[in-house]
């Protein structure tokens, strides 16, 4: 694989965003429409306690990804109610055209006491082409289970052969790697299947091997098919010290498969890496691949987890 970087695509600090959001455009994910490509992302407001709340917004681009058409000014999907899994943020959101409707698999966040937060995967449905979404119930469709005790998140859903496939992550442990600091989490990529997109079968198994060590954190898998092979991009980092030390920060990882079950990790084939300088020189994370007009793109966040937006690269064939 060889990706040609097209540069920064969207900077949230240059736009007025809904829900009092001022920074961050994280985990961009696309819905390809007839006349545009809609890029959903999560942006942030600070609540009265000074903590962040992540909200969903979107930016529409021309199909050649060259022109920004407009930025959403409304609430695409409100946060969950008191005590719900998605009360304190929705990040990320993955959308899938499903007949006349658009399915959105959300990761909802709720704050806790001993650890900072937990997450589960919810479903919301749009009947207006992705302009707004309504929840399928107030609870999650995928959450903690016997072998996935917490942090079930980062769903990416595609249909192959009449089956819905979800790649997602689950937490394996919370640990104080540095005694004086708050506990950090470890999470891994897993896979689930479904006949209806609602009820999912899963086995709580890590499907992509570690590169760094057993505490490697793997996040945001995205999968596409090309030339008879399935390609997965994701991001990975060290479990601690990853916020300030860019040597421990997120990088893009890559794996390939011929059967959607068994994956061979080979980051050396990813064909994209940090820039020498600029917005993606210290970190690359939250990749999303998509296809439009016979072109393949990857959009992703750079330094500071996407505080200043996301960029794009095109696959060279």
């Amino acid at each position, binding site marked *: 694989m060889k990706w040609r970087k097209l540069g920064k695509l969207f900077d949230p600090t240059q736009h007025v965003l809904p829900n009092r959001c001022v920074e961050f455009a994280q985990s961009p994910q696309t819905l390809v429409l007839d006349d545009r490509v809609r890029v959903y992302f999560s942006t942030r407001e600070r609540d009265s306690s000074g903590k962040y709340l992540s909200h969903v917004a979107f930016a529409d681009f021309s199909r050649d990804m060259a022109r920004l058409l407009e930025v959403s000014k409304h609430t695409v999907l409100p946060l969950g109610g008191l005590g719900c899994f998605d009360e304190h943020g929705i990040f990320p959101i993955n959308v899938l055209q499903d007949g006349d409707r658009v399915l959105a698999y959300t990761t909802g966040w709720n704050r*806790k*006491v001993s650890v900072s937060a937990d997450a589960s995967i919810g479903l919301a449905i749009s009947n207006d082409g992705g302009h707004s979404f309504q929840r399928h119930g107030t609870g999650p469709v995928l959450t903690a*289970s*016997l072998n996935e*005790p917490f942090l079930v998140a980062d769903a990416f859903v595609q249909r192959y052969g009449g089956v819905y496939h979800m790649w997602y992550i689950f937490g394996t442990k919370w640990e*104080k790697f540095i005694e004086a600091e708050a506990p950090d989490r470890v999470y891994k990529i897993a896979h689930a299947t479904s006949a209806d997109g609602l009820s999912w079968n899963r086995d709580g198994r890590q499907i992509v091997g570690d590169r760094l060590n057993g505490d490697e954190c793997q996040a945001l898998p995205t999968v596409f098919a090309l030339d008879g092979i399935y390609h997965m991009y994701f991001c990975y980092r060290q479990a601690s010290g990853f916020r300030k030390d860019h040597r421990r920060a997120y990088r893009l990882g890559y794996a390939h498969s011929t059967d959607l079950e068994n994956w061979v990790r080979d980051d050396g084939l990813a064909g994209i890496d940090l820039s020498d300088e600029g917005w993606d020189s210290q970190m690359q994370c939250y990749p999303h691949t998509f296809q439009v007009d016979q072109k393949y793109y990857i959009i992703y966040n750079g330094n500071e987890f996407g505080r200043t937006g996301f960029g794009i690269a095109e696959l060279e064939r």
Partner: protein
Amino acid sequence: VHGTFGGWQMTETVMAKNIFKWNKLGKLFDPKDLTIASWMKEFAQSPSALIMDDCVRVYFCSRPTPGPDGQYLSYISYIDLDRTNLTNILRICPEPVMELGKFGTFDEFGTYPVSVIRTGEEIRAYYAGWTRCESVPFNAAIGMAVSHDNGKTFHRLGDGPVLSYTPDEPFLLGSPRVRKFGDQWRLWYVAGKEWRVIDGSPEPVYKIRTATSDNGIDWVKHRRDIIADKLGEHECQACPDVTFSNGIYHMFFSYRDIRDYKSGIGGYRIGYASSADMIEWDRDDTAVDIQLSESGWDSEMVNYPHIFQVDGSSYMLFQGNGMGRAGFGLAVLESEDAWART
């Protein structure tokens, strides 16, 4: 027949049926009464019986002294009762049968209530695990642990819950009561519906639900509230304990108002429902008769019923004042004819 037509018809209905009249045998256990050193300091909640050869083991939930933050942790415990005299305690659990969950897990801050069942060589404990949250005080999900040493210690199958949240059961899965009828596992539990702000504090509303399983691990939820409200849609229901007798399924449970429930006024009372098929339940709280005492440990509350039958008699375990802060006790069914309801 429900008496909307004044007292006469109501009286006739009541007279025509058998009543479950429970005669109290007194308090069984309160850790505050102990004269020996124990890890248990306060509370004896949610009793659940397991019949053994020489004793009736009663599992329950108890608490050490609260931490520096004033908050309690709840652990699973047991006492063994003499089968020939159930008010005689033979043994007291020397330490919790299971540790709390790890950092960030669903049962990090408590395991309560508990329901215990024997299956083959193992004993299983189903329990609600508690975690602490920021916007609301807590959340719960249902876990399962297994004992291979005849119930002295229990070990988790995994770090997560066996019954967790779904689109129409968004939070607070608790009060598990497990039974096995034939090859089918049955779990009755409660599911949270909403958090309401009452006098400035978040208070949950939760209802009784059920799930079935072939192995007791993978559960299929039936996805509906199965017991009609009596106090209104804000009624909170808990502790659904089901027994099968005389061809009928009998459920004793607890219910309370959303307000003033920490005292006796709006606090948990015992309700009753019956069913021929475990699908449709006919609620009739008038069928259960267990009185508050005039004074003492169970004068304000009698709730969290658990029914067991041993050596030809039927018994109810229940917790007393302050949701079991004053311990739990035992009552015996006055007449076995009560099970033959028409």
